[in-house]
């Protein structure tokens, strides 16, 4: 008796969820989105992912809806929280396609969750333009999952961007060749550190201090004190948000005098500038945008109007752009024939908020921003793999 009532209860609930608002004149199209709202990655998704889902849908509906094969569809989002658990992501994507009959399923958030869901997208032939997954194995992945596109690049180009920036500063005499480099002991940090060490040695830098620290370390002052003791000319940290904030504060407290100070994830977050205000001037970070370009300015303004929060200067624009690529491909193909849409994505270049996006034969977007710098309260792109609008990098003045 028990199991039947529960299955009936679940079915009832599912039906309630799916029915949603009654169909108004214009046909409604379901758009599925699954990402963390709780769990370790909730913080990042709350800044870069969820606001852009809301913004993209309101923009498309603002333009009268998605024009597909002569009909225009009003978009309606179905959001699921996967609690940063790959098992949940897989179930949610399955649910979106099977139960909710969502025609468009936006890619999940972060490398791990995207790759866990990739087999499901592949089975349904759904285009999957990831915007928050970094991997150097784009070729192996695209062989296994032909419908997966990587826009955020991998560790190699990011490291190359940072190395080029440092070489430019050194050649201009702004910094010497002594370098201190730390990383968070998580897959992301390890991958970047292993690329960076040989790259910097080849570029003629010598590593005066190098270490890793576990995820969730409460006190990074020992790391900063040891780095300062090595008297480096430049400091680089492949860090996650909590460590980025902690390392920056410790650098201010220790008054770390370096010509270049680079921290990774969250440097581009509005909360970073919100916390350190003038202190951020000259800080380098992962990502960046063509901040002075018109496209980004209007995007940032709309982002704040619609979602009430400022976008970050790296992932936000990338997430929105990946949605634009999907939108333009569907409208260009004029139907929901996923195979044709994927072929279209492979073949064309798309004009987006961060500028033109063109995927190479491994479905990898070769040109993206790698390094940005806080200049005058805005996080401007200073190095990229083939993006225009880069500003010149400045020497890091003393901490204010």
């Amino acid at each position: 008796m028990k199991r039947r009532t529960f299955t009936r209860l679940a079915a009832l609930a599912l039906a309630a969820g799916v029915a949603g608002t009654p169909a108004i004149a214009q046909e409604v199209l379901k758009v599925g989105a699954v990402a963390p709202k709780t769990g370790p990655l909730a913080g990042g998704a709350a800044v870069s992912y969820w606001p852009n889902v809301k913004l993209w849908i309101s923009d498309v509906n603002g333009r009268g809806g998605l024009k597909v094969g002569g009909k225009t569809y009003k978009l309606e989002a179905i959001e699921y929280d996967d609690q940063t658990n790959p098992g949940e992501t897989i179930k949610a994507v399955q649910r979106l396609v099977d139960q909710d009959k969502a025609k468009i399923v936006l890619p999940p958030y972060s490398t791990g969750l995207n790759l866990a869901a990739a087999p499901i997208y592949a089975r349904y032939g759904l285009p999957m333009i990831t915007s928050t997954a970094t991997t150097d194995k784009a070729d192996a992945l695209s062989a296994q999952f032909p419908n997966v596109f990587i826009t955020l690049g991998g560790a190699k180009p990011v490291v190359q961007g940072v190395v080029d920036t440092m070489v430019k500063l050194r050649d201009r005499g702004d910094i010497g060749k002594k370098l201190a480099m730390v990383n968070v002991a998580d897959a992301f940090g390890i991958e970047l550190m292993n690329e960076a060490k040989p790259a910097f040695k080849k570029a003629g830098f010598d590593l005066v201090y190098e270490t890793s620290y576990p995820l969730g370390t409460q006190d990074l002052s020992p790391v900063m004190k040891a780095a300062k003791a090595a008297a480096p000319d430049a400091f680089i940290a492949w860090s996650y948000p909590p460590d980025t904030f902690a390392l920056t504060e410790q650098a201010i407290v220790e008054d770390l005098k370096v010509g270049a100070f680079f921290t990774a994830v969250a440097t581009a977050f509005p909360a970073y500038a919100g916390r350190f205000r003038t202190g951020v001037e000259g800080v380098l970070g992962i990502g960046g945008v063509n901040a002075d370009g018109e496209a980004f300015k209007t995007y940032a303004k709309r982002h704040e109007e619609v979602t009430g929060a400022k976008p970050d200067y790296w992932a936000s624009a990338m997430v929105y752009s990946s949605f634009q690529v999907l939108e333009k491909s569907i409208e260009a193909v004029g139907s929901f024939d996923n195979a044709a849409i994927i072929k279209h994505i492979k073949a064309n270049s798309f004009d987006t908020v961060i500028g033109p996006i063109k995927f190479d034969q491994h479905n990898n977007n070769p040109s993206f921003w790698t390094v940005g710098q806080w200049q005058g309260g805005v996080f401007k792109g200073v190095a990229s793999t083939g993006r225009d609008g880069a500003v010149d990098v400045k020497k890091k003045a003393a901490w204010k």
Partner: protein
Amino acid sequence: MDILITGLLLGGTYALIAMGLNLQYGMARIMNLANGEMLVAGGFVAFWFWTGSQISPLLTVFVVAPVAFLLNWLIYLIFLRPLVKRAKSRGQLEVDSILTTFGLSFVAVGLMLAFFGGDYFSYSYLSEPVHILGDTYGANRVAAFLAAVVICGLLWLWLNRSRAGMTIRAISVAPESARLVGIDVRRTAALAFALGGAVTATGGALISTFLTLDASTGVIFTLKALVIVIMGGVGDVRGTIVAALLLGLLETFVARLVDPGLTLAAAYLLFVVILLFRPQGLFGRPTT
């Protein structure tokens, strides 16, 4: 030398994180896994007061403490008293409280998400350098350490000197016999639990000045607090203080001289070793 001071400062932070749980578990017998969420909530309020109307976290604490006290008192009455009534043995109460407070931690995360959203929140307060014995330290960490010393000191004095403090210590040692001498165990346990909650929330407000928090980070603090309370000896205020300082020093020592990658692993190793050779913790009484 600066390893010693940095270690002590970290120890002060850990004392703030763990002291509340020691009161809640040691005295009121409630293994509270929602302790981390209460800490983060304290941090949220401090962030909200500071960014909203520039009220310094050191002042916000005087608002956070009473509110948290009341809130925890209600939580004890509504959610935990039925468990205490129903529990036939101490073991059963502990297991039930573990499962219930885990549910509560989920509810707390859900509520914080609803009110504060999932975003990271961090702010700078007193993040100027302070020179002690020739080395520089974050002013906010030093302030938090001093606050920890004040709070732990007051708690220790209050527990050992005042009548109410003695009743709390009585129910932690032997709840059954405490009832015989006329102590209303349930009311005292509620008092201890509420006090523990207030201390945790205050700790949260103080450490949010230098740590970045978001709605889901409570778990890390809960685990750290559990390790410290068990290591120091359940129900013993001195135990928690010593264990917190010991852990702070060990982690800083390993971070500076061995390999920062091993700090948390070393902390858990210390926890395992103490648990095996002195299950009752450094200062605890050997429970049968």
